[in-house]
């Protein structure tokens, strides 16, 4: 489990986002394509690929891709 794989998964599912444009410092809300569907996509990836259940509040509480990845790792460690 590393952040490069996580970013690859996001870029596969975020169809409108240019490949290679997402970095660990990318702020979700700053992405021009960000929408409610993308929030659902993130929740689905985190559940299906990492078996971590994220709430809407969890998503509101993270700003960057790196923040989210750290949260997943913390939840996996519990």
């Amino acid at each position, binding site marked *: 489990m590393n952040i490069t794989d996580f970013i690859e998964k996001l870029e596969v599912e975020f*169809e409108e986002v240019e490949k290679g444009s997402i970095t660990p410092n990318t702020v979700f809300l700053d992405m021009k394509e960000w929408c*409610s*569907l993308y929030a*659902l996509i993130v*929740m689905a990836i985190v559940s*299906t690929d990492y078996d971590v259940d994220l709430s809407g509040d969890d998503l509101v509480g993270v700003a960057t891709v790196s923040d989210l990845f750290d949260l997943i790792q913390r939840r996996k460690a519990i």
Partner: protein
Amino acid sequence: MSSNLVAIDYYLPERVVTNDDLVDFFPEQSAQKILRSSGVARRHIAAHGQAPSDMAWQAASLLFEQFSQQGIDLAKHIDGLLFCTEIPDCRAPMTAVFLHGRLGLRRDCLALDIPAGCTGFMNGLLLAKSLAASKQLRNILLLTAEATSWVIPEDDLALRMIFSDGAAAALVSAGEKNGIGEFVVGVDSQGASSLGVPDSGARSPLSITCPNGADGIGMPFGSLQMNGQEVLRFSLREVPALMHRVLEVNNLAKQDIDMFIFHQASGFVLDALQRKCDIPYEKFYRCLENVGNTVSSTLPIALAKALSDGKVTHGSRVMLLGFGVGFSWSGTVIEWRNNYSFMQ
């Protein structure tokens, strides 16, 4: 005594709303994006005044026609009618009573409504199975029908792009062989506020502060509310566990199932569940694109379509999982056979 799912049919209203039609109403959207978000290209919408009971009557008539072609008047053999809907004809009597009369069923017949939303068909199938297996009843007509378009505000694209109207009819009969397996059921009332039609009953009567679009006219049957994030979380939490539990109680392994048919909630939910449940594409049935989410009718419609597509055939073992409003969930495995017959 055992029980079997003997026959199935369905009815979809003539009026179709395409994604291009939705773009006419929501010009900032594109048909492609709506398809990607919902997994639905076409949805069927009940005609003005076409109640769920009317659609259920149509579905039942199509089922009866299957038998009348063999010279059988099925109506004379039905001793149980279960009707799943959340929009009854009136508060009392039950809509199943009216359908009983319209279908010309015999007087010594149980007639019961089951307002259980997306889990309705499965709950009805469990009841029908139990009633037949206990020898209380012999031939149970299980009807499902919803006109969800009646409880969706016209300016709510997220709901309009997913939901569709329709009905289905199934015959469950007592028999020597057992074609309906063990059920797993569940409910979580914490989900009640995430999906439902509030302000529509005794606890909170229908409110006129429920405008439908710009004209502000109240919606006479209430307004459907859905928290998409919570519905997704619920689905990904409970449905994979339900699948494993259904396999366990039926002493089956995943590879023993020939076709998995899940409630056709939305393309997004189905994609995520297929991945999380690790089900091969060819064993995961979908008919959402041209039907939409018909609530309690998605499972019987999908099963009927899988039969007509040849994806489910004589001897197929099919897992059926229903889940949704409540939250609630229910699942079983059926063995489809072309030669099950009703109880004379």
